[in-house]
């Protein structure tokens, strides 16, 4: 028979190893995941113009991307001042894809990956 202590330490081990992330919903893709991470950390709401400014280097438009992903996850609203803003609708969806792409917390490995990409685009500009 397994001792209770043994059983619980096994549970801790299982928890620590449980990083096989389950991803549900549409994949935002490598190009837009940076924007989703940024949007999430900036309160989940930002102006469309700022989002497009961020995506300029990628050569994509936020409105096209929202159409592709679906309005259940990310959507355009209008403020009382008449400005178009993007709102992240589904935080758990964003969370799981950010974890999947390793963008949830700042890390050197991700920095190295993006550094070369940005340097490349900067050279083009």
């Amino acid at each position, binding site marked *: 028979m397994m001792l209770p202590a043994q059983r619980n330490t096994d549970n801790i081990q299982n928890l620590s190893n449980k990083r096989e992330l389950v991803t549900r919903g549409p994949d935002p893709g490598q190009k837009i995941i940076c924007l989703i991470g940024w949007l999430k*950390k900036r*309160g*989940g709401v930002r102006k469309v113009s700022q989002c497009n400014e961020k995506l300029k280097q990628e050569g994509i438009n936020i409105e096209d991307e929202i159409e592709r992903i679906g309005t259940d996850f990310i959507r355009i609203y*209008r403020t009382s001042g008449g400005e178009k803003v993007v709102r992240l609708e589904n935080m758990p969806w964003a969370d799981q894809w950010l974890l999947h792409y390793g963008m949830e917390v700042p890390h050197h490995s991700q920095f190295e990956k993006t550094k070369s990409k940005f340097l490349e685009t900067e050279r083009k500009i």
Partner: protein
Amino acid sequence: MIKDTLPRLPSELEKYIKAPYGGLFGNSVIVDLLEEITADPYRNYRPKDLEKFINASSPSIRKCLSSLTAIGILEKDTGNQKHPLYRANINSKRLMALTFLSYAILDDRDGTACMDESIIDYCHRYRLIDRIMPLAEATLQKVEYTFVSLKFRQNEQAESGNQKQIMDITSKGA
């Protein structure tokens, strides 16, 4: 005239566009800059781009960039003296704490668990779990040991109580 089909943004969310961190630290250029850098820590920042993006004057952006560099949240790339580049210092714990703060603001507002998820991810990514594991196991074993010995003592007490009751009954019967 084409009818606007876009839904109206709930008014309580508008403050998150107007002020960084939902107005927690007021609305100054340095806080806005800090939130921007925390939100996108992998980018190289040029003062000119930030002026446009944050909508602040050139001297105030330069002043904020200098103070954030002096306190170690930003690193200055002086490769090009005329057009310096700034990037986030990924090693800064304050940058990490501000990342958690960004998520905490969402959690308080929407009742989500973004900060918890990011802390778990942080523990795995920075191998903190390896440091926590032995402590967690030792604590659990200690708790289990206390629990088992308490249970054993309770059983013993119950048994001695039963024996006493039996003895009382038999002595009354005699």
